[in-house]
């Protein structure tokens, strides 16, 4: 399949990019690495008149770190930039593990972190070719009036399948969003609408310019585990990110945050994780969180590879293993 025809524009500043995106509204799409978007264009799932490439904007690919400010990731920084960054490797293992689990090394060199956060939702009734869609009524995500996944539903049930979003949510990341008028900063979770059709809340003219992650606390540990059929290429069928901090003695949780992906229409931050604060590292305390996470995971029959019942069953097992891994790294920490 060839790409559809579009006009390609590569603005030189964030302001210019925002203005162009605002001006053309729904006719324009911003592109960073393109590894998700180009496939969708080839399948004619999107047919923009304008592609606004962010590549020509200077200094947008910077990754910086300071002990006081934490980590800042520019919008054009690639997944590989994170994976190969020694500071990120040392301080944010969850982020490295999540980035390493995306696609293949080739895709990690092309794909950006910000692009991965803005990954479009997936559904096997949607991510198909024009021939596949021909002769069928369009679903909500294609602009129609039906959901094939949840029969009788009034909304789209496509699934969010990004890997780095749960990692960054667990780390408490914020994003800086460019706007023609005034850029703003917001918590990462506010990026996600929970609407399968339009999974992110960015409005015309807005795009992520920067992701900020707080500095790592002492005695902290983090980990990401991904359920998939193969050890490469595949999108997650479930992803679990855990970030915890222990008290000085290492006997109780000082804080904990947990996020899931490929379990809902958006990545989910499990609020109950905060209840671990002050609790001992016993299985009893953790069990409650496992239950809470499981009850919030709503996998549906729209991803290939494993059925939703199995994916839901795996929440507890994967989460427990991820917590164990994060605990191990926290206990080794200073």
């Amino acid at each position: 399949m060839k790409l559809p025809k579009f006009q390609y524009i590569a603005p030189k500043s964030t302001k210019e990019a925002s203005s162009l995106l605002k001006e053309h509204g729904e006719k324009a799409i911003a592109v960073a690495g393109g590894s998700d978007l180009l496939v969708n264009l080839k399948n004619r799932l999107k047919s923009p008149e304008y592609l606004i490439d962010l590549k020509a904007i200077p200094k947008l690919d910077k990754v910086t770190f300071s002990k006081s400010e934490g980590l800042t990731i520019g919008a054009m920084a690639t997944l590989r930039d994170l994976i190969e960054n020694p500071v990120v490797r040392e301080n944010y293992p969850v982020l490295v593990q999540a980035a390493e689990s995306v696609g293949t090394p080739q895709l990690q060199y092309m794909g950006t972190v910000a692009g991965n956060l803005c990954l479009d939702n997936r559904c096997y009734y949607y991510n198909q070719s024009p021939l596949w869609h021909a002769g069928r009524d369009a679903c909500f995500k294609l602009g129609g009036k039906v959901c094939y996944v949840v029969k009788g539903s009034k909304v789209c049930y496509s699934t969010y399948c990004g890997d780095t979003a749960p990692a960054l949510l667990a780390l408490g990341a914020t994003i800086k969003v460019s706007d023609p008028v005034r850029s703003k900063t917001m918590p990462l979770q506010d990026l996600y609408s929970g609407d399968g059709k339009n999974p992110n809340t960015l409005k015309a003219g807005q795009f992520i310019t920067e992701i900020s992650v707080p500095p790592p606390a002492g005695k902290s540990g983090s980990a990401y585990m991904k359920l998939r059929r193969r050890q490469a290429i595949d999108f997650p069928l479930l992803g679990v990110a855990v970030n915890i901090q222990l008290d000085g003695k290492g006997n109780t949780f000082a804080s904990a945050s947990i996020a899931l992906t490929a379990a809902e229409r958006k990545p989910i931050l499990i609020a109950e994780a905060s209840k671990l604060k002050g609790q001992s590292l016993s299985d009893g305390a953790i069990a409650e969180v496992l239950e809470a996470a499981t009850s919030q995971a709503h996998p549906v029959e729209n991803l290939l590879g494993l059925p939703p019942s199995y994916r839901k069953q795996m929440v507890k097992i994967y989460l427990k293993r991820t917590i164990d891994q994060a605990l191990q790294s926290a206990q080794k920490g200073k």
Partner: protein
Amino acid sequence: MDFEVIGKNIPNLSAPPKAQGRSKYLDDIKLQDMLYCKVLRSPYPHAKILSIDTSRAKSHPGVKAVISGYDIPPIKWGNTHQGFDQYTLAIDKVRYVGDHVAAVAAIDEETAEEALDLIKVEYEPLPAVFDPLESMKPGASLIHEDRPGNIANHILKSFGDVGRGFQECDLIREDTYSTVPNNHAPMEPHGDIALWNSDGSLTMWATCQSPFMLRRGLCSPLGLAEDKVRIIRSEVGGGFGGKVETFPFQLVSAHLSRLTGRPVKIILTREEVFIGTRHRHPTIIKLKTGFKKDGTLVAQDGQYIVDCGAHMGLGPLMMLISSYMLMLPYILPHFRFEGTRVYTNKPVCGPLRGHGAPQVRFAMESQLDMIAEELKIDPIEIRIKNAIYTGYKHPAKQEIFSCSFKEDIQAVAKALKWKERKGKLPEGHGIGIGCSGLFCGVKIMFHAGGSAVISISVDGGVNIHSGGTDIGQGVDTVVAQIVAEELGCRFEDIHMITGDTLTVPFDFGTFGSGVTLRMGNAAMNAAREVKKQLLEAVAPRLEVSPQELEARGGKIFVRGQPDKGISFKEAVKIYRYAGNPQPIVGRGYWEPDVEVGVMTAGKDGQFSPTYAFIAQGAEVKVDKETGEVKVLKVITADECGQILNPTMVEGQLDGSVFGGLGMAFYEEHPHIDGKYLNTSFLDYLIPTSLDGPDEMPSLMIETLDPKGPYGAKEAGEGNLVPTTPAIANAIYDAIGVRINELPITPDKILKALERKGGKA
């Protein structure tokens, strides 16, 4: 034996150009004025075509021709005589999603794609059937009007007396197994360039496994004589059985070239490869097998339902191969096998590594382990006890010329430390074995042999003109090794001339694990003719008779006196200066001494000139909480005759193990209303290098076979066959559950563990 060239790890001749990016694959070939073709395919699994309007597409700028089934002669054709069941482009109705409806030739791909959108087709959807069992039921929607019950073909093969046999048994088991479609997934998609010449002949550049088979396949649908069709094979980026057949897209490009007078290129998209070429047949196998208490196999009855998709393809053969591959590699006195191949409204099935063997061996080898357990006999012992051996007189009149199957089994057992570890490893950790026999060089129609001409150039270069087809497996290199050994010339002086039906002699190409036998034997015979002429010319100079001469390592010398000789190049000069006819030419032909009726109609007798035997062991760890399986090791003992090139054999084994892993765990085609859901390399799961075993040792067992060149047999295709059952048996050893419906997935394993209860 001590060889000069054979058995050495000579690098594949095609490796340097591939590594440098200089190989000419079809996509690299561009002809002047070339047009690009795209095919409009059916979005419905079964529908009447009410009308086709191509007028808008025809007037689209850049479009040179548009055709539908109504614009070309309505000739029904097929890949076997049993199944002339398709038109090149659909007439009156479409039978699967992906069926060919119309085609466009335009100045570039984009324009051709745009034009497809402008073709208006009105369909009236018909009820469709996707499950062979549904399709066979009375009242099911008929896919081909002249095929009642949607039955494509049926076979019955038997020998001995199954009824009496079962009466003699102490244990009879009946189990049902099922398999799913797998695709060849070659890296290079299918394609061709057709050029209809002004004299009415056709030249086609094609990525294919057999130029001569393609030439024959194109003739009758196009109404051309064979000598009016010339096929030029491009470098082939993977075949695995998927590029053997003639496809509608090739005929479409020929028609479009005829209409435009310009070369027309078509390269399928990945989606088109998945829906528009072939798959391994999905099957349902009911296997009833009887044993005596002492572990003697007595009788077997197989009931087989095969889903062939919407057309016959080359498939009828597949059920026969399934039945023959149950008849090997164990001694089996009483046998009955009934197979029914059923049409469904799904993409067409065809040959894929093993062509019917992997499905039935998965069933048989799984069941054999269950029987062994019930009889309290070790799985290794029960296999050795029933193993076929050299010279075994098969009740169906198959002859076994070379077989070290028992040694294969013992080698695997030893490598897995079977005695110490079987049934004794910690819970979740297990080992298993699977076995198979395989044909080497089947004959699917008359004259399915190979021929070669070797000519010697004035300066002593050795030119091998062969009709055989290297599809990446390295047969050109191996044939050059055979000829260098036979002629005694240097390997580097050999030139392979292949792939063009106009300039090379006939050979039926790569299929049926026979290319080394066909191409190799033909070239070896041609080399012998050349050698005879050379030795006769040289003998007077060395003052001995030709019989006393030996050719070896680039020299011709008196046997036993390596100093008394001359170089190969000097010998050529002597021949020339003696006024002998020029150039020196030798020809060779080889055809398996196999009756065609055995292969096509299931008569008793030899259906393959010889057979290879394989034992494979697997070691796995199963995560009982998640059902995920890690394959630690796959060990292959392949009794592949004389090894011609160890590195290439190893490459074949490794590739086959990955194919087997794909079949066992990953590869399937879920669909909605006949629309395959996974038509990309993202969604169609082929195991990656990270998903393979940590170790894949190959234990090559050499046995000299009287039929193969220098005693060589097949090495590759057969090794995919036992992988799936070896893994299934290892999983059983690890956790005590069996998944009889492929593929084996984590959720199925967890469910099976839950059913098993307490122990989980």
